[in-house]
């Protein structure tokens, strides 16, 4: 397992073309504890890159290192090939960011909040209306932010990140605190960004389903270390699918199908067989169905079940999936 995971870590030579973010052996210590420990990230241009990890895994610390808000104890960061330490201003010119908790000047209007960033970035006034329209906040632009709902504050944060049309958008837990409708809206919005703006999106989250639904690439961080990095399909391909069987006689079926290297387990009233690979899974399912029918065992459920991201994630961070704990 570990060998397969290590194979997925592909440190890229700093300054490589087509890479939005590269980090090399990044480390940050707080009071003797490595919050980020030897992180090598390689975020391809144009991707929606999910940065997944449980709370306290080092996601926010990594993001703050990427933005120059924290100084690493070791390692290097490049944004579109610009070394962050040497050329912070040039590197950050292509970055827009929205933090976990949307922070705005509450006594000012949405428009005034955006005007602050616009002036500092020396942008044209028309940009404010453009980004307000993009996040659908034009109708409340002149309302004080203290009267905004949490969802509106999040969208204002996104609008601020979009000012200056950055090539890289970094979102730290963008759905934090939102209701299910808000989460879906935010997810749908982020999914469209690479097409609408041409930007690369780096989005951190501890919500697996969220990342699964919007990311093209993913890195999983746990205890400050990257435990997986690659395309979403590569992550899913780490484990071959399983065959779930519901039948009239579990004991006989289990005895018939087990044996040799094949492992048959009973979980939640069903038999689960780990397949050796995804190839030929359908043919094998049909063969097993036939074999059980011929033995007089009725099959009422037969499904090829890929590993869910949650199961993969729990495997990667070393926790047991819920069904195994039971």
């Amino acid at each position, binding site marked *: 397992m570990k060998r397969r995971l290590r194979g997925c870590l592909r440190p890229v030579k700093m300054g490589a073309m087509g890479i939005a973010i590269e980090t090399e052996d990044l480390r940050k210590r*707080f009071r003797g504890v490595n919050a980020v420990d030897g992180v090598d990230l390689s975020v391809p241009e144009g991707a929606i890159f999910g940065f997944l990890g449980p709370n306290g895994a080092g996601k926010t*610390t990594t993001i*703050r290192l990427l*933005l*120059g*808000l*924290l*100084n690493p104890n070791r390692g290097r960061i490049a944004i579109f090939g610009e070394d962050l330490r040497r050329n*912070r*201003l*040039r590197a*950050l*010119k292509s*970055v827009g*960011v929205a*933090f976990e*908790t949307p*922070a*705005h*000047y*509450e*006594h*000012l209007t949405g428009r*005034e909040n955006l*005007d*602050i*960033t616009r*002036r*500092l*970035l*020396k942008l044209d006034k028309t940009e404010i209306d453009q980004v307000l329209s993009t996040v659908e906040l034009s109708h409340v632009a002149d309302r004080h932010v203290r009267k905004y709902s949490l969802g509106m504050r999040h969208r204002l944060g996104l609008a*601020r990140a979009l000012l200056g049309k950055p090539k890289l958008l970094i979102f730290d837990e963008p759905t934090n605190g939102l209701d299910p409708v808000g989460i879906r809206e935010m997810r749908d919005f982020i999914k469209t960004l690479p097409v609408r703006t041409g930007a690369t999106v780096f989005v951190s989250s501890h919500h697996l389903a969220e990342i699964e639904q919007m990311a093209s690439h993913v890195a999983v961080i746990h205890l400050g270390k990257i435990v997986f990095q690659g395309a979403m399909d590569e992550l899913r391909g780490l484990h071959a699918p399983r065959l779930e069987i519901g039948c009239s006689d579990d004991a006989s079926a289990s005895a018939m199908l087990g044996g040799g290297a094949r492992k048959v387990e009973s979980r939640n009233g069903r038999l689960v067989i780990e397949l050796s690979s995804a190839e030929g899974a359908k043919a094998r399912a049909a063969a097993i169905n036939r074999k059980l029918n011929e033995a007089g065992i009725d099959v009422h459920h037969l499904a090829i079940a890929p590993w869910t991201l949650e199961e993969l994630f729990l495997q990667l961070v070393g926790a047991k999936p819920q069904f195994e704990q039971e």
Partner: protein
Amino acid sequence: MLASIQVELIKLKRSKIMLVMLAGPALVALLFFSLQASGANLRAWPLYLFAGLTAWATFMLPLTATIIATLLAQLEHGPKTWAHLLALPVPKWRVFAAKAVVALGLIALMSLLTGALLAFGGWLAGELNPANKLMDPAPFAALAETMMDDDDQMFGGMDVMLMVQQWRLVVAERLAFVYLSSFLLIAVQLWAAFRFRNFLIPMALGVGGGFFAIFAQASQYGLYFPWLMPFNTLGFMPENVEKALAYGLVGGIGMSLLMLVDMSRMQIK
């Protein structure tokens, strides 16, 4: 830099800072207007204005500088906007320098307002009751000169005749000295306000500094105490006035530079 300063001014919209700006000078002016109008006649304009400036330099300036520095920092600490500001492609020092420039500008305006409101209060007291009218000593300068011998014309190193003849200039000059010598205490207050998220820390520093300044007046080291420097520029000894001005102004510029270097290295967790 201009954009950074403009941005700081936008943030002050609808904030309490304008109230502080008006309240500080108004309270000093009101106190001395009340004294003058209630019959505690200070008689001459220079005496009245110097008394008002002393109250400004000793209590109100350090206190309002503390509040302004704290408010400017809390604008970012409160909503946690430091991370956003410092992640922009703008030099970090510029963010803090713009706030320092705005603080100095606001306190300069407050100093002018203090002078103007003090003068208005003195004039109003005289208008309400002619018995409390303050005297312009300048027309009596020639008479005063004939009544004083050479020794009398210098009082504790201060040129009394200059005070009589050109009192407006002297008061304006001392008002400027009070302001310029407060740079060090403003820089210290800003640094503390930026560094600590808890507003009680810079507030305690400012109030504590002002409190200890009362005792430091009697100490030989009082000249080096930042919260006492504005007061010391109102003294009679030209040498001490110059020292207080130099320590406050040059020290303030030096302290501001150190603050900018330190704050630019600040890490946002």
